[in-house]
């Protein structure tokens, strides 16, 4: 009796141990992997953006083995952390202009995507359930081709129209590549609309056009905003499309980063631009989710 009661009294400890054991064993490997190959590299980039380039490109060592050398020209130390990259960025309007242009291009792309996605998403959601999957699959199917193939296709098409290497070509390809990212969330939203709402609106005297603008469109705003995030953010980091289809003035933030890392090999500067891009992305993502939540909340209040 006493023996068995002691064995029972030990059980709570055993139980909690096992629970945390399972938890560790499944969360530890992915956690370590992501810390090593995502968090740590990101951290290095943050630090790198405050460093200066090394002699042969890359980053100068933060703690050199040789005593720090004094730069003869301006008398500054060649090592340590510096704000120089950021001051360069903010002192030359050329960089601000590229950021501004990228945001404008991303905004225009998002707008056109929304414009084109709406009829498709609406068309699918108005179909009977059995046909929706097929129509949706037809939207996703072009994804089966490689990203570069989809860009390349426009080289063939736009060539005869003398549109190659222009900003128009860049926008067309950006829209083409990102359109499904707008259609899918918009459809997911439209599909949830209660068809009775449309009937009710019509029943209460609204024309189809009024019904769309007063009922369907406001209700679909959360879908549009989440789709916008999915289009806007990748466009900002895009470098291949401007490079393949664009002209000299089509460069975006992505090109700036790529050039810094692979051509001029000024890695601290590239890291700094990447940091600025990260901040921009975070701001856009935050804005989109705020807008999406707000429109959702407003709808809840309205009901």
């Amino acid at each position, binding site marked *: 009796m006493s023996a068995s009661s002691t064995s029972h009294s030990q059980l709570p400890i055993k139980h909690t141990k096992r629970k945390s054991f399972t938890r560790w064993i*499944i969360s530890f490997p*992915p956690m370590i992997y992501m810390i090593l*190959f995502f968090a740590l590299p990101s951290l290095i980039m943050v630090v790198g953006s405050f460093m200066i380039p090394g002699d042969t490109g890359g980053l100068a060592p933060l703690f050199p083995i040789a005593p720090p050398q004094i730069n003869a020209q301006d008398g500054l130390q060649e090592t340590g952390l510096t704000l120089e990259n950021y001051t360069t960025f903010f002192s030359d309007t050329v960089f601000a202009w590229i950021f501004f242009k990228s945001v404008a291009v991303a905004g225009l792309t998002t707008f056109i995507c929304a414009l084109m996605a709406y009829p498709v998403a609406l*068309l699918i959601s108005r179909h009977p359930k059995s046909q929706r999957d097929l129509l949706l699959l037809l939207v996703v199917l*072009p994804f089966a081709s490689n990203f570069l*193939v989809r860009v390349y296709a426009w080289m063939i098409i736009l060539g005869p129209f003398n549109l190659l290497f222009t900003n128009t070509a860049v926008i067309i390809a950006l829209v083409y590549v990102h359109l499904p990212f707008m259609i899918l969330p918009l459809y997911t939203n439209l599909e949830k609309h209660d068809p009775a709402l449309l009937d009710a609106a019509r029943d209460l005297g609204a024309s189809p056009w009024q019904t769309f603008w007063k009922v369907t469109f406001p209700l679909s705003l959360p879908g549009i905003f989440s789709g916008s995030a999915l289009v806007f953010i990748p466009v900002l980091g*895009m470098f291949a499309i401007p490079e393949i289809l664009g002209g000299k003035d089509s460069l975006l933030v992505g090109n700036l980063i790529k050039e810094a890392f692979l051509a001029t090999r000024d890695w601290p500067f590239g890291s700094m631009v990447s940091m600025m891009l990260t901040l921009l992305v975070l701001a856009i993502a935050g804005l989109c989710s705020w807008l999406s939540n707000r429109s959702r909340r407003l709808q809840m209040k309205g009901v």
Partner: protein
Amino acid sequence: MSSAKKIPLRLWTAGLSVYAFLYIPLIVVVIFSFNDSKLNAQWVGFTLAWYKKLFSNQEMLIAAQNSLFIAFVSALGATVLGTMAGVAIHRYKLPFLSAMVFTPVAMPEILLGVSLLLFFIQFLHLTLGMYSIIIAHTTFCIGFVAIIVRVRLQGMNENIFEAARDLGATPWNCFRYIMFPLIRPAIIAGALMSFTLSIDDFVITFFMAGVGVSTLPLQIYSMIKVAVTPEVNAISTLLMLLTLSLMFIASRIAPDTLKGQA
């Protein structure tokens, strides 16, 4: 049946034009891959010459081999780690782990590419190669697998895992007999998706490929930077076929998980 209501003609026209916009470029690529002309301008006649040329292109074959190997290994790694992450996030609601796993999916790819470039070269002082591509691909595929697995778990009645324990299953048996069979379609879908993402990836591979290691997208990139040749059409068509069949398999195995992921 309100869904059977008449769809306005304007909506049909607009919707179908967008579908046309999505498909015409790809159809053009496929058609010109069989065109007996060096220019992608007008139809001359049918030929398989570009495919033949492709299969005698040694560089291209090695790149294809590399692509398949990288995709296989990174899909394997991402599937194991992503499944673990998906289950762990669903089970224990770990905000830190989910931030770590899902952020790379939402970020512009270039950021992951350059930060890993810094990491390997500047921090670890390593030369890039096949391994760095595999590691990078695994990093962003983990998130996709975790999303698919988690969506599948979210769609399930949480009580069944408790029921299994209640009926005498140890945690391991609960996983083996109940959870694993139920999330298997999601795991397979995640694996196929990782494979597709890896084989198609250009941006990250572009930063991760050192001298000497090439993949199919990198080959296409260098070809179209130089000139537009029907050979590119041929390789594009083949790549399309490959991903298409992978998507087909995925939709057969787990139709609902593919949808849920969208």
